[in-house]
């Protein structure tokens, strides 16, 4: 069969046919749902702006506390190295490090949980 070029009207007709064929799929979400999602996003965005400094602050506190503890230990070791011979001292030191780490993790985790639950 010989090819003949399609006219603009042919293309328009074909496109109209395509546009008029029904779309399968679930119905469109209601406008209220889209509005609700937008409001929820806005709310989460604003809260995130509030919780972000707290999160960063928590990490900073954790870092400063860790560095301070290491410096303190180094100083104590220099001044009274015999303290490391005491099991109680080692136990208390390790316990303090564990408690500090747990507190820092809980702090950051709590802030993140709050942020996520509000999204």
């Amino acid at each position, binding site marked *: 069969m010989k*090819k003949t070029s*399609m006219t603009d009207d*042919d293309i328009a007709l074909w496109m109209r046919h395509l546009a008029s064929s029904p779309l399968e*799929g679930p119905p*469109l979400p209601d*406008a*209220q749902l889209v*509005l609700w999602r*937008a409001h929820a996003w806005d709310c989460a965005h604003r809260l995130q702006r509030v919780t972000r400094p707290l999160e960063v602050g928590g990490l900073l506190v954790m870092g400063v506390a860790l560095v301070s503890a290491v410096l303190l230990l180094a100083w104590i070791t220099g001044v009274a190295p015999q303290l490391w011979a005491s099991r109680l001292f080692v136990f208390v030191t390790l316990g303090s490090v564990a408690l500090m780490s747990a507190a820092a993790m809980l702090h950051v985790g709590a802030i993140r949980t709050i942020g996520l639950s509000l999204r």
Partner: protein
Amino acid sequence: VLSDEAFTDFYRQTAGDLRNYAARVLGNISKADDVVQEAYLRVLRHPPATGNPQELRAYVFRVVSNLIKDGWRREKRESTIRDMTTSPEDQRDGALRIDVRRTFLKLRVRDRQLLWLAYVEGETHREIASTLGLRENSVRVLLARARERLSNFLQGATTK
């Protein structure tokens, strides 16, 4: 800023057309719904400085076009053809309807967008250029090529 009532009216007036556009160009209704919803969320988050319904409509079509383009760049493959041609609804549909969709999906995304905006939305070259972020002169050339490619596909289908 769009009030809730204004948005609801705007949504009801445009969502169907926008979904049709996105679904035909993407060839996948669920992706189209994601794109359309994201577009409306963007309109609500960053409403354009206009209350004119026509300008709002053009804006949301532009957002959808950009989302389609971005998504397409990410995927870099034409998996959508498979999505459309293997749906159970298609198997029930007449052969002509399937061919219409399949043929359209053979075109490049840009061609689909151009043809849809020109022939279904009835946009002028200038409006298409604004929607797709192209120059007006480029639209004229690209649209002619898209028409030619569609014509070739259609004639190829009819001569088989």
